[in-house]
């Protein structure tokens, strides 16, 4: 509401006096220049360095081998089956976690908005995983939850007479997805819950009078109302999920084989296990391009959502 109120008069102003607007912008330039400059340096320096390393022969184990490599590093990268596997793993991981957290978060948000006994405590419990650092939660999942011998899952399996599953060996990627989803579900819940609570309750009442069932109220009133918050959750989560590392490092180390190697882990492995800085930088460039493609579509779709 407020955004519309603010943009309409501004649009009028630019239309009626573009010259004055331009002059005002020019006067503002020196004032914003330091901030913009710092941000630019902050972003540009690492980017250029990565770009530079990605076209260098640069292996820490073999200092004799150096010099300009051209696109060799990239060639090596795209012909490496690990790379494509890691790309697929990255996308599967991001996609699956998004589905679980946004879907589960929306349902939980609607549930937590209903009155029930012990709501305050339940909310705190539901949100607390977000405050556990990734390394710790990965360790907890690895040793306390999913461990075939000491884990709770194994205990439950034995309880019903099944033989326990070694989750990280049998379903490695799914297990990592479970851990990361567990960490990010509270975030989605938090954002979506505030959005649910901001819904004007009389809209739901109007829908009830119009004959909407609970599912229809959700579908036609709640979901459109949440769409903006959902886009925000998707955008923020995507940015962080593209770089999931600690969980993989702690639990599977990218394995078995390359089953849980995502782009971030691949870059790590290239740079610090194989000491191939050039190859790692090439992977980094791919990650940057990938992130930007995703960001472009997300920002566009959210931008459209914002001015409904």
């Amino acid at each position, binding site marked *: *509401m407020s955004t*519309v109120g603010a943009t309409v008069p501004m649009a009028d102003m630019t239309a009626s006096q573009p010259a004055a607007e331009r002059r005002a912008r020019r006067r503002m330039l020196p004032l914003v220049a330091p901030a913009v400059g710092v941000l630019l340096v902050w972003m540009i320096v690492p980017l250029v360095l990565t770009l530079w390393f990605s076209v260098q022969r640069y292996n820490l184990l073999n200092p004799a081998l150096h010099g300009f490599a051209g696109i060799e590093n990239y060639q090596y990268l795209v012909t490496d089956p690990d790379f494509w596997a890691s790309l697929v793993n990255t996308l599967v991981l991001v996609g699956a976690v998004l589905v679980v957290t946004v879907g589960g978060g929306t349902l939980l948000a609607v549930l937590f908005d209903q009155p029930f006994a012990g709501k305050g405590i339940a909310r705190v419990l539901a949100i607390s995983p977000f405050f556990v650092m990734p390394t710790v939660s990965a360790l907890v999942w690895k040793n306390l939850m999913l461990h075939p011998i000491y884990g709770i899952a194994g205990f439950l399996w034995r309880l019903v007479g099944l033989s326990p599953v070694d989750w990280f060996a049998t379903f490695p990627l799914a297990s990592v997805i479970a851990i990361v989803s567990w960490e990010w579900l509270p975030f989605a819940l938090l954002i979506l819950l505030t959005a649910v609570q901001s819904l*004007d309750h*009389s*809209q739901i*009442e*109007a*829908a*009830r*009078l*119009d*004959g*909407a069932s609970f599912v*229809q109220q959700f579908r*036609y*009133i709640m979901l*459109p*109302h949440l*769409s903006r918050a959902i886009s925000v959750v998707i955008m923020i989560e995507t940015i962080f999920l593209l770089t999931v590392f600690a969980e993989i490092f702690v639990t599977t180390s990218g394995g078995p084989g390359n089953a849980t190697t995502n782009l971030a882990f691949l870059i790590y492995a290239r740079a610090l296990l194989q000491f191939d800085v050039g190859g790692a930088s090439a992977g980094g460039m791919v990650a940057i391009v990938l992130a930007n493609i995703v960001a472009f579509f997300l920002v566009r779709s959210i931008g459209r959502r914002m001015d*409904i």
Partner: protein
Amino acid sequence: MATLSLRGVRKSYLAGTETIKGIDLDVADREFVVFVGPSGCGKSTLLRMIAGLEDITAGDLLIDGTRVNDVDPASRGLAMVFQSYALYPHMTVADNMGFALKLAGRPKAERDAKVAEAARILQLEPVLTQRPRSLSGGQRQRVAIGRAIVRQPRVFLFDEPLSNLDAALRGQMRVELLRLHEELAATMIYVTHDQVEAMTMADKIVVLHAGRVEQVGSPMELYNHPANLFVAGFIGSPRMNLLPGTVGAAAPGGTVPVTLAGGVTVSVRPAQVLAPGSSVTLGIRPEALRQAADGPFSGAALLVERLGGMTLVHVTLESGETLVAQADGNDPIRAHDVIRLAVDPSVCHLFAANGLVLSQAEPPQAKPGDLHDLDAMPSLARA
């Protein structure tokens, strides 16, 4: 055909405290009923109970003679217009209005026809494809009404639908709602805290106070014959002047002198015998007070409100009380002028200490000229 009856309807949100304390009411077919009362008296609660948005704690709600306490809101055949409009922000105006029909699974052609018809009645055709946020307040209000019309409900419920609009638009929408009532020949229940809206729109006013019905009647019945002090003070703008007084010994001819705090005595003709010495409250409408050289009330004009057609004079009496008197629009009176006021005792209201009315005022005779004939005012004595 839609009638509505409430039988001993009660509501408690929290155990032990009642918000609605037993309401009996009948709404006839095609009647325009207004619930009016101060903030927090339970108007919205009552309306929401009728709509089915709140459970009825005790009592029966009958629509067309059928008990509907446990019928879900959509099946009661009612439509409600909310104070906040409650439009669906992500749907166009047409979709907003057609939503109920869409949920009911009606074919698109029928939906479009009904939406177009409602849009015609409400002059919303140019904005059908817009979203609510790009509409003005009055247009949003009309969309909310259109959403109700499209459903062809048995009863329309309005919860303070005009309170978010500015004064000019409110006046205009008031007229439009009345036109709509005429055109749709529908039963309507309308909640407001604005007694002007109640007076101008209602066939029947229900005055609510603290969860109880204080009085039910047509606007003029309530104006001329308020049943108690609350209704007397609530209905009518400017407010009725309420002056505490003491009953004196009955005079021959059935009149009883009431001595007010400032020593002024007004003779009234009560409908029942009054014990001398009992304390009462005398109610005088501002238009029943006239300037007269020999009037019993005298005081300085504290404030002169010029409304154009009439002038309201706030007079501080010698006894310290303030009276509001209505004068002509062109009355030359100025602030701080000392004036005398006379009153027609036949249009005074007398209330007992428990707030109930003792003597009912006669409705003023509509004889032109009579109103300004101050000399014709009978026995006023100064003690």
